[in-house]
């Protein structure tokens, strides 16, 4: 081997140095992103009940056949009314559980007598399609204790949520998966 063939000329040295610096930079960026991801954790889609207008899009725009959005009930806010306007038609024939009196087209709300004159209302998630009709009824006259939430046992957490894109009130956002529900607290209950 001759001495001249081993010698690193200036051009080669600069080239190698740039490649090393580039590799280090990419490695550093990847490490920084990894650390940041580790800090922020997983994200999940959720809708803010304070922004939701109950437009009904949640029922039909989800990529699932049966939407991942369902109604939930804040019991501390509920008035336990006999005439629950989230359960009954605006002008029910009588305050009985017959389908003709019920507001929910899928019969997804259960009414149970507690004590005179109070009734408890619970959501049958198997039947709820997330249309938000009961949410409107509850808000029109009552305390707003019925509201919609993305159910994370069903949500596929799509990169681009089809409901979020169609939401007219921009109620959807990504939230930390560890706190994936935006629950209503007692607000107007006496």
């Amino acid at each position, binding site marked *: 081997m001759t001495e001249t063939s081993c010698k690193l000329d200036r051009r080669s040295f600069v080239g190698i140095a740039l490649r090393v610096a580039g590799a280090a930079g990419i490695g550093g960026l990847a490490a920084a992103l990894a650390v940041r991801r580790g800090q922020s954790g997983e994200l999940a889609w959720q809708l803010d009940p304070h922004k939701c207008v109950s437009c009904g899009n949640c029922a039909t725009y989800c990529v699932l056949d049966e939407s991942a959005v369902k109604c939930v009930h804040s019991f501390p806010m509920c008035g336990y009314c006999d005439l629950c306007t989230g359960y009954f038609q605006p002008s029910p024939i009588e305050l009985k559980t017959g389908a003709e009196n019920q507001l929910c087209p899928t019969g997804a709300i259960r009414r149970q007598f507690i004590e005179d004159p109070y009734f408890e209302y619970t959501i049958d998630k198997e039947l709820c399609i997330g249309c938000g009709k009961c949410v409107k009824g509850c808000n029109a006259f009552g305390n707003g204790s019925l509201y919609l939430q993305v159910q994370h046992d069903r949500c596929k957490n799509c990169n681009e949520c089809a409901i979020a894109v169609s939401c007219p009130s921009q109620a959807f956002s990504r939230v930390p998966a560890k706190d994936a529900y935006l629950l209503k607290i007692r607000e107007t*209950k006496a």
Partner: protein
Amino acid sequence: MPASAKLNPLNFAIGGLILAGIAVGVLVVLMNDPSGDGGNRLPDAFDYSLEEYQKIDPALVKYRQTAEIPLEMQEPRGVAAGIDDKIYVVGKDGLAVFDPQGTEVKTVRLEGETQCVAVAGKDHSVPGRIYLGMKDHIQALDTVDGPAISWESLGEKANLTSLAVAEQDVFAADAGNRIVWRYDASGKLLGRIGGKDEARNIRGFVIPSPYFETAAAPDGLLRVVNPGAHKIEAFTFDGHLELSWGQRGLDVAAFCGCCNPAAMAILPDGRFVTGEKGIPRVKVYDAEGKFECVVVGPDVLAPNFSATTETREDMRLKPVDVAVDSKSRIIVLDPNAGKVRIFEKK
């Protein structure tokens, strides 16, 4: 014509298929509505609207608005009429007093958030005294800008939503404890009215939301709204239930929704003025509770009817409050418009 340019059946079929494919593609793009502009595509059974219930026969409206007072206070909550028909309005940040024509007399800032107000008449032991309902106690003001005397707290659970003043007594409707407290004018607690008592045939007040009204009537009985029962109940000052009236329903003569009326006042001749939430309407009933007429309806109080089904907390309609003066004018606090509306018989 060269042979290559000839349209043979195969080329025609291929061209047709391409055109059909393009047409299908365009159709799919047009039918797809990712932005939701086309609505929810749900059947009519999933719609919720109160529009048809908001229409009121104009023949039933027997009052006309004769004045209005724009308010500058935050979150106006309660209205009352006092001696000389002065109008008192309380809100989150203070008390405003207007003369009967609506000219501002005085505005004072108050410590704490005031929820309701009542003003003693000439027959009260301290005429003209202003009683303010805070969340858990009453404050008494002998003059608008005088020092406030705070009465004893009723505890954390208390939520005072309405006050009434009789000759010797002051009553506070407490939505939190679901009773009416009775005081004398010095602030001494004399008793409680309306608690569930089967022996006295009192079912108890049903108060799903914090709108619980009371007023002293000229017949010497205290009237208390039982909103969850859609009734106005009459009690002696000792707490005996004498009578009640009212029925639920969306019909104009009834009280709508889960719990109404949300506001009540009593005219000098003993007739009742009620204000409802949900479908905002102010109505008059005679002294026995028979519907007489409408003062103002949703066309004025909720001109954008869709607001009645709004689910966003900050956009929802706030219930009106009502008061009456010695000339039987009906004073309506419209918190959504930020004004007081004054109505007189047509």
